[in-house]
């Protein structure tokens, strides 16, 4: 089966002095989360679309979904403390609710990337049906430099540098086994879900993203996102 999992676990700590998590802020008249869910509901191949929220915001998210989304595949559940906790809570829910099948795959996506396109979602599904893990990337435009203190340790060749976006997609069996093999320190240090599979030695396929599929994280991002959207006349 093919699942979508929308990761809406963020608390909005980078959004400045806004008490509401950023995925619930309004963009073009609707919460960002709803824009993102709408994109996934237009893909008929998803058997279920799991939205994973901070525990305190589950009711809020369910109310929003009930008012705006008419699709029985969408389920809102509570996530965990960190990104990968939230991811695995969603996987756990899928397996408890729908059972476990060897060919299950999941397309995971940040709730705060509402500009994802049909093509990117489609490419993720096609790729994850053939490979254990898939990452959506765009070639780096800026030069990437590596350093830990005030000086640069290395400047990698830009042509081999990409910026990671989402969706990130996984064969669930591989993801679960790879996550179980990590120790607690590794689990705590992971800021990227594809790295779970990479650390376990699995290849991660790259799918082309789009520059506009950016993450709305800061007040600046929200202003840019709002300026980008035109209302249909």
């Amino acid at each position, binding site marked *: 089966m093919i699942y979508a999992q929308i990761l809406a676990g963020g608390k909005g700590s980078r959004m400045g002095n806004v008490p509401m998590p950023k995925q619930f802020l309004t963009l073009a008249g609707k919460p960002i989360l709803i824009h993102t869910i*709408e*994109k996934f*509901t237009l893909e*008929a191949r998803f058997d279920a679309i799991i939205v994973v929220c901070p525990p305190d915001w589950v009711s809020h998210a369910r109310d929003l979904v009930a008012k705006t989304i008419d699709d029985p595949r969408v389920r809102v559940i509570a996530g965990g403390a960190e990104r990968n906790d939230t991811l695995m809570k969603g996987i756990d829910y899928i397996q408890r609710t729908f059972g476990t099948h060897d060919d299950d795959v999941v397309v995971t996506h940040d709730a705060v990337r509402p*500009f994802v396109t*049909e093509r990117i979602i489609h490419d993720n599904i096609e790729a994850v049906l053939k490979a254990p893990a898939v990452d959506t990337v765009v070639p780096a435009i800026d030069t990437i430099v590596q350093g830990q203190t005030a000086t640069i340790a290395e400047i990698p060749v830009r042509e081999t540098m990409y910026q990671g976006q989402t969706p990130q997609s996984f064969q669930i069996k591989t993801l679960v086994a790879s996550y179980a093999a990590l120790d607690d320190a590794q689990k705590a240090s992971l800021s990227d879900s594809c790295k779970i599979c990479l650390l376990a030695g699995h290849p991660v396929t790259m799918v*082309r993203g789009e520059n*506009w599929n950016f993450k709305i994280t800061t007040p600046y991002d929200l202003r840019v996102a709002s300026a980008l*959207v*035109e209302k249909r006349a």
Partner: protein
Amino acid sequence: MLNQVYRLVSARQFEVQTVAEAVVTDELVVRPRYLSVCHADQRYFTGQRPDAILRQKLPMALIHEGIGTVVHDPAGELAVGTTVAIIPNTPTQHDPIINENYLPSSKFRSSGFDGIMQEYVVLQRDRVLPLPADFNAPVSAFIEMVSVGVQGLSRLETVMDADQRVIGIWGDGNLGYITATLVKQIFPDSQLVIFGRHRSKLDYFSFADKTVLVDQIPRDLVVSQALECTGGRGSEAAISQIVKHLRPMGSAVLMGVSEEPVAIDTRSVLARGITLRGVSRSGRADFERAVAILKASPVTRERLQNLVGFTRKVRTIQDIVAFFEHDLTNYWGKAVMEWDV
């Protein structure tokens, strides 16, 4: 819903614009799949429309010929995954006399508003027509043009007299070819004569009864009814020849779009009692008749497959530009893009 719309902003330059769409119950959401380029699109792409028109209409998504799959129907009438033809003419009112494609209030995709080059197209539910599963997708991409041919022949049926012996088509391009295939179905007993400028293009019209180079038309050749499918600068010469070779009191349907006004020998039109009937675009009824003809006639579907000039998948804006550029050098047939952007 946030929709990515790929608009032409100036000659040869496309940009993506995010548009917030509200989908109401009498609308549908369609994912475009196969799109076909028309000369009108190329005139925008190359900046050949007058500057005032370009300033008024751009930025705008191009393409008004295409098919897609239904991805959302709020009313649940059409199943998700149904392949549909997109009807670009979008009426805003109904008139008992004037057809939808001649109402000044109607909007037309890639002319008055965004065409099909979008991530999703949101449209009124009567602006799609489900297609049989066995239709060839690249051919279906230009069903809109087939419907324009149907419109031309339907109008001819309403204005012509009883003489159907010889039907002449001026024009050996895409519209001429499509209209010719339809003449064979709508007027099966008529003799079909094609008048063109290129022997190599006329050779594709193997199903016509006769093909004639326009500089070698026998003086005594007479057609009962005529269709002008040239457009552009060729319109004037074609209309002049039609007036000369049409039987007195015959009818001619003018279908080719000319950017500039063309001169017509009205003295001869008057003296010979000729009816000139203009047609443009098409409406839902023409699409329905076009699909019915194609369903009933595998040979027409096969003939139209010979009109697919080339098919290419596009995934990026660079691909789109390259596609339009390639079409400019394409000698024969329709350019069809597999839309995967």
